[in-house]
């Protein structure tokens, strides 16, 4: 077998530099030359980015120092997402953790459902340590001891995606990744095999390679424009196709969570960074105008805007094959799912994990591409269903968009999941794919998809024992919570960037 000795990455956004970082961590410069082409002229998407806990594995694998990385990207901590206006309670959290603690193998939400039949146990959120932390704007690292209630959550970050890409770029360049400035004007394919052989830049320079990774975002310069690889459109389920993004000044209560608020024709995000707050409105052009969307977004800010809102266009869906011959589309070039559950960096990361498992040699055995595409499809489809759930089960919002999503036909897999949960609070576990039963339970419950009955396993605890169990759990959460610092204090002590707010190049 002949190993690949030249890899060319197109695009220097988050996914491009993440790809370069993974490859330069895996291959020494003398084993493989890694080039990344990017253009200063092409803006990258990223106002503030919310992530998932998996990004920590990524950073750890690269060996990044957490505090340094957070300072460099003006990052804050994230315990989950607050969904406002999606259910009748007004606000619920989807935490990086579970509600309560299971007892004797019985899932906690089943115990809570049983408790409701004979007492008022309060909101199920009162039993989730990360939700309580988030609601009180506190933060601390989880502890290792699995018996402690303080071990039952994970955390992620909010960071400035532009700064994150820049930080990774420095890291990559120090390890020998070659950055090439320029815009691609031509993609040359072998006439016989269809394999891409080189990219031509506006300067006339040409860049070869044996493997090309297309991280050029929505434009998908290689995979979409040149190879014309198919696109599966998911707009019928996820009709939002525009976003307006704008930063505003930060506020004092530095919240350790992302907020997603349902609006008349979509939803707005709020992502708190050290130096400012990122905001955006994801909406459907079928159900509102850009002018109206701008009005809604600016009206939703909790401090003055720092710039003019920027418009992004997109289409929910996925490339039918992300890996074709010697081209792999990654990040937005491979698929787009709106940031409602902060999945975009994760989807790049998991694609890189799969690529590492299936790294080809110059023969490009088609079995590798097939397996890569199979794994990617599972990831995208499972995230997709979870996002559709948010819209379809929204029990609070008014307007034509919401009427549409509430009555649209949804994938059978989702229909079945909802029916089983309504019937008895059951969530089927799957091996691959991002969201565990705990996530589904949080959204179901938060959006009023309430089980009609509890699982009789919960009868294993008598009413008296259950009452005592819930009381103890609440007490444990209260006493552990009281001693923890505020999120703002924690950031100040751990990873504060004194220059935040000042531009740094």
């Amino acid at each position, binding site marked *: 077998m002949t190993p690949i000795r030249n890899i060319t990455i197109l695009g220097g956004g988050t996914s491009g530099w993440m790809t370069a970082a993974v490859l330069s961590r895996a291959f020494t410069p003398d084993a493989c030359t890694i080039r990344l082409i990017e253009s200063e002229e092409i803006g990258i998407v990223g106002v503030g980015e919310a992530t998932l806990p998996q990004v920590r594995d990524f950073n750890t694998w690269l060996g990044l120092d957490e505090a340094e990385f957070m300072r460099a990207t003006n990052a804050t901590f994230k315990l989950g997402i607050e969904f406002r206006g999606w259910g009748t309670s007004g606000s619920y959290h989807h935490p990086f953790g579970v509600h309560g603690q299971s007892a004797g193998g019985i899932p906690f939400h089943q115990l809570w459902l049983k408790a409701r039949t004979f007492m008022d146990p309060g909101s199920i959120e009162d039993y989730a340590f990360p939700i309580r932390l988030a609601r009180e704007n506190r933060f601390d690292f989880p502890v290792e001891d699995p018996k402690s209630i303080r071990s039952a959550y994970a955390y992620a970050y909010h960071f400035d995606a532009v700064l994150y890409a820049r930080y990774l770029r420095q890291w990559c360049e120090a390890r020998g990744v070659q950055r090439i400035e320029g815009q691609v004007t031509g993609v040359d394919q072998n006439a016989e095999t269809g394999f891409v052989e080189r990219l031509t830049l506006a300067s006339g320079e040409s860049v070869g390679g044996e493997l090309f990774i297309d991280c050029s975002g929505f434009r998908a310069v290689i995979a979409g424009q040149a190879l014309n690889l198919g696109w599966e459109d998911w707009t019928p389920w996820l009709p939002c196709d525009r976003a307006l993004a704008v930063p505003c000044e930060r506020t004092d209560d530095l919240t350790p969570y992302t907020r997603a608020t349902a609006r008349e024709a979509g939803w707005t995000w709020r992502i708190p960074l050290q130096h400012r707050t990122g905001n955006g409105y994801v909406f459907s052009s079928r159900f509102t105008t850009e002018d109206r969307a701008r009005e809604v977004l600016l009206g939703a800010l909790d401090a003055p805007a720092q710039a003019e809102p920027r418009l992004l266009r997109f289409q929910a869906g996925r490339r039918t094959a992300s890996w074709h011959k010697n081209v792999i589309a990654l990040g937005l070039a491979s698929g787009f799912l709106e940031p409602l559950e902060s999945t975009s960096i994760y989807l790049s990361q998991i694609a890189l994990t799969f690529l590492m498992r299936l790294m080809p040699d110059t023969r490009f*055995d088609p079995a590798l591409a097939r*397996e890569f595409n199979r794994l990617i499809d599972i990831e995208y489809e499972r995230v997709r269903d979870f996002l559709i759930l948010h819209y379809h089960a929204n029990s609070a919002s008014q307007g034509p968009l919401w009427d549409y999503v509430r009555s649209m036909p949804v994938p059978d897999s989702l229909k079945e999941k909802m029916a089983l949960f309504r019937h008895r609070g059951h969530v089927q576990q799957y091996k691959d794919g991002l969201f565990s039963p705990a996530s589904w339970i949080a959204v179901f419950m938060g959006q009023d998809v309430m089980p009609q009955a509890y699982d009789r396993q919960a009868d294993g605890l008598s009413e008296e024992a259950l009452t005592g169990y819930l009381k103890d759990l609440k007490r444990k959460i209260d006493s552990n919570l009281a001693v923890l610092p505020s999120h703002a204090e924690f950031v100040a002590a751990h990873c504060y960037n004194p220059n935040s707010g000042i531009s740094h190049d």
Partner: protein
Amino acid sequence: MTDTSVRPVRTVVIVGRDEALWLTAAVLQRTFARSDLSFTAVELPSLLRPGEVLPTLGSQAGFHARLGLEEAVLMRALGATFTLGQQYVGWAKTAPPVFVGYSSTGVALHNVPFHHLWLRARASGMNVAFEDFAINAACAKQGRLLTPDADLSGFADADRGFHLPAAPYAEMLRQVAIKRGVRHLPAAHVSPVVKGPEMTAVVLSDGQTVEGDLFIDTTGSDARLLSQMPETGFSSWRQWLPFDRLLTTYAAPATPLPAYAQITAFRSGWAGLFPLRDYTAVQQAYIRDELSDDEAFEAAAMVVKMSLHPQATVTPFEAGRRPAWSGNVIGLGEAAAVLDPLGTARMPALLLGLSHLTALFPLDTSGLESAVYNRTVGQAYDRLRDAQIWLYSLNKRRDQPVWDHLRSVSLPPELAYKREVFAACGHLPVYDDETFDEAWWIAAGLGHGLFPATHDVRADQLAEPELIRHFQTALGYVRKQVEAMPTPDAVSRAATV
């Protein structure tokens, strides 16, 4: 089923026999003891054969814990033994035996999975078997038993399964179930009563009618109840799993006591030895068209080279499955899926059905759970089947019709895909609802000589000395751990004190 007939499930009737009946009854009774469910076990005459053994995985321990059965007490009372895996003898006519155990093999280096490191070293001439880096294989071959409190942190994931003598095990579960409150009705045979879309009762041989809201069929491969329901046709797996006869007998206990099962292939099938404290259980799977039952007995004695008890039982079987849940009837164990006796699949199939049923135990007679149950459990049975076909398909016994067929038959699509990807690059796709993990599949594949065309390119970047040091450290670690482990006899003796 129309909504008008939907009613809560309160009365559950479990009809069947042996370990399937009593494990189901005991576990359900224990799980729902305080609920409003009542459980009746209708016990049919036993079909257990003298000397029968139930090989099973470590996951069985979770059920024992749930039932409050202490492992040491159980092992002592039954004369059961621990097993670290299976040794396959004669899968190729000239190759050495292959051990496939319940542990990981080797340790990754710089995130490169160990089997890729091994493949690279093999390509450059290293001649150390893959299994030599697996703690279970090393323990088993050195006559040691891995103890559960051994600190293998960071080095290996290891587990041990059980060989359970069938009759005393079923008897123990029966006592547990009855003591915990399961109503027990023995019967010579039963007649199910089906009205419209549901089963309403079973009539016992003594004329008694037992009504119920839900019926669980643990009668075995006849599926006496389930087969009366609509859309429960049996899909045969014979094209992939052609063996149709199982001979069961036993021999003297082995000394010293091995901590593994040995499966030896011969022209028309295979014969397995399953060591127990008081005897050695013997099973032989073969093809009726090639061997009469008398010939089979003689063949077994020759293959295992032991004097076998002449009271051998021959049971016909056909591997396959049927939809497990129809209306208000749910099949568990062989009523739902008949696995080939190879490896460890029959008992795990029962556990799979039972644990999914516990999680989805129906609230009412609407049957709302049946679709998801049938799909997930059906897939899980298929993946167990695929693990067996995987083992069979890797044989190299050329010019023997059954084995040639097993090697060349076109595989079920999911398995064919798995094999194609593994053969191409050493990556092993694992699906939802798999019983055996990636480590097991890889150990079986590489052990039986299915070598991927390429390995992880990152393995090639490692400097030779670093790689050699890594292998030496791993082998040294295995050697040291194995030396510290007790013999299976010592563990067995300690359990009898």
